[in-house]
């Protein structure tokens, strides 16, 4: 049940109870008072009419005398009947007199009762006529008076009570609604802000209204969000600094390396004529200069991916042709299944980097035979590189594309820059494709590259 519904129900319940108590009690009291007074009036009037007939004429009373008595007490609106020893006379039907009333009157008291008669409510008042000086005369007089107008007043009262109660309920519901809004809006704001925060919008805050408990929650939320934003910002700044540092270092290294790399060919050609140790030293410097160049180039490549400045130079190519060139140029000995006619729009030099890294990795860490398989699946091209080695250990598998991740910490650095697979992975991603690593059921690592064919451009 929502908070809103609960509030509405609580207000409704409260207002119903209150309205019932106030209007109901008021109605009952007013009704009783009105009915009581009307009945009292009728009784007083009837008895006073009866008393005006005293003293009674001498006995015996015949039908005509009774008729006269009934005529005297009936009044303008009513009708009456007078009974004496089984003889009754008058305009009022005796059938409306209940036995209950008769019993009451015959015991000598003044009785009255409301009855339904002729489609309306009537009051029957009955009394015995007394003989002067005490004692009853044995004559019973009943008067039938319309009571409809009083009942109408009572009904009106009831209607009023219902109306006031209903209006109160509606008013209560409106107020409940307003109150619920007042409470629920800050709650909703808080929920939205928390959601945005969860989505990574660290600038999400909630407006603080008033000084109530909800305002306190909002203030706490804002403080927490601020501190979170601060810490995340700090971390991001630190990470950006670290990345920028790597980029700066790589770029600074590049210029002296460019000078050194430029002369490696001269040195290569001349080392043959250098005597013994000097020649060995020169060859070492040459070789390591080129290794260093490769490492720095890879580092710069990685920083370009990180900064988002790496771009695709797209070309329409025959994929089999590109892969075959990669394998041939690097002298890789693999079993390749490269069907003709797989045309794709991609960056051939980046595909070359991916395939060269995957195959180079398979040949270095796996065992021959290495197979390269190309096929089309839906709107993607798939290249699978599989080796027949022991496969990747379970603890290596999740980190295989991590930078500088060495499966075996004792392994020398001569196995490549340690960035090859990370760069391959980034290149696949840059194409909107994927690169995944797994172990084949029969043993051996399996790398699967999936790139969109991207012909529609």
């Amino acid at each position, binding site marked *: 049940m929502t908070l809103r519904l609960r509030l509405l129900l609580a207000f409704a319940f409260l207002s119903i109870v209150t309205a019932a108590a106030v209007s109901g009690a008021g109605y009952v009291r007013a009704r009783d008072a009105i009915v009581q007074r009307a009945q009292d009036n009728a009784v007083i009037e009837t008895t006073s009419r009866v008393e005006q007939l005293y003293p009674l004429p001498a006995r015996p009373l015949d039908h005509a005398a009774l008729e006269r008595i009934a005529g005297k007490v009936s009044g303008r609106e009513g009708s009456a009947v007078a009974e004496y020893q089984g003889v009754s006379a008058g305009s009022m039907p005796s059938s409306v007199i209940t036995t209950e009333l008769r019993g009451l009157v015959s015991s000598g008291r003044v009785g009255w009762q409301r009855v339904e008669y002729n489609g309306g409510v009537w009051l029957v008042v009955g009394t015995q006529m007394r003989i002067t000086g005490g004692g009853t005369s044995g004559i019973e007089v009943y008067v039938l008076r319309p009571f409809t107008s009083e009942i109408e007043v009572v009904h009106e009262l009831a209607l009023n009570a219902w109306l006031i109660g209903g209006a109160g309920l509606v008013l209560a519901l409106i107020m409940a609604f307003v109150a619920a809004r007042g409470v629920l809006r800050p709650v909703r704001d808080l929920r939205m802000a928390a959601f945005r925060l969860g989505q990574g919008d660290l600038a999400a805050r909630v407006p603080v209204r008033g000084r109530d408990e909800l305002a306190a929650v909002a203030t706490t939320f804002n403080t927490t969000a601020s501190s979170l934003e601060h810490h995340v910002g700090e971390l991001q700044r630190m990470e950006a600094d670290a990345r920028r540092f790597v980029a700066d270092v790589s*770029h600074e290294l590049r210029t002296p390396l460019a000078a050194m*790399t430029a002369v490696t060919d*001269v040195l290569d050609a001349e080392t043959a004529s250098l005597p013994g140790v000097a020649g060995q030293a020169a060859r070492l410097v040459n070789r390591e200069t080129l290794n260093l160049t490769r490492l720095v180039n890879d580092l710069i490549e990685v920083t370009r991916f990180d900064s988002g400045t790496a771009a695709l130079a797209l070309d329409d190519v025959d994929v089999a042709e590109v892969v075959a060139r990669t394998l041939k140029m690097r002298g890789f000995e693999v079993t390749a299944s490269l069907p003709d006619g797989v045309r794709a729009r991609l960056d*051939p030099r980046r595909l070359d980097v991916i395939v060269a890294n995957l195959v180079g990795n398979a040949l270095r860490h796996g065992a021959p035979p290495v197979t390269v398989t190309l096929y089309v699946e839906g709107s993607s091209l798939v290249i699978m590189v599989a080796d027949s080695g022991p496969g990747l250990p379970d603890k290596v598998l999740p980190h295989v594309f991590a930078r500088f991740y060495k499966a075996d910490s004792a392994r020398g650095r001569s196995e490549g820059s340690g960035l090859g697979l990370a760069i391959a992975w980034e290149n696949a991603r840059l194409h909107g494709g994927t690169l995944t690593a797994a172990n084949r059921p029969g043993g051996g690592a399996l790398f699967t590259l999936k790139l969109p064919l991207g012909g529609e451009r």
Partner: protein
Amino acid sequence: MPRVLLIEDDEAVREGLSLALTYQGHTVDAVRTGEEGLELLMSVAPDVVVLDLMLPGVDGFEVCRRIRASGDLPIIMLTARNDDIDVVAGLEAGADDYVAKPAQARVLEARIRAVLRRSSAAAPEVVAERYGDLTIDREGLVVTRLGRPVSLAPTELRLLLELSSSPGRVMSRQQLLESVWDQGYLGDSRLVDACVQRLRSKIEDDPAAPLYIQTVRGFGYRFGPL
């Protein structure tokens, strides 16, 4: 051996490249700034310019544009490693090819040889071929449009000769990189696209709706059909 004008602001790189190119038999004039390079261009008449893009004062792009405006001298630019924005901007400024630093001298040497290579696609026919308003003289390496000679940079000329050697046949960018830029390995297709753009602006009536050098989506380029 060709004469190389090297414009590079870093002293060590300049010295290293001069050393290596001289060792391979080139005559090298090495200067530090674009202004010096443009000045020297008048007096020494080099065969090829090797141009660093990051220069103090007049930058490499501007130097490239000025050289291109005044003639057909081949230009090879030196760029930061895979700096894609620089590569595209440099090619648009009119460079024929580029080499990313750090590079071994033999890579630069190969690129120099490629841009200086005379067209190998020359057909035995002596008569100039006519295609619409265009006349291509394969022997004299002269291209005229409406009777007036068109000034083409070496790679632009070679690209036109290559494409027009078999009109109507589609050639892929990688094929063109191999035959025009002499890149036996996978090349940068942007070289072809930039060169096609420059060539179109010189020989087409409306470069946006090319007649001679047409793009075949998904495959490459084709000369004609007219």
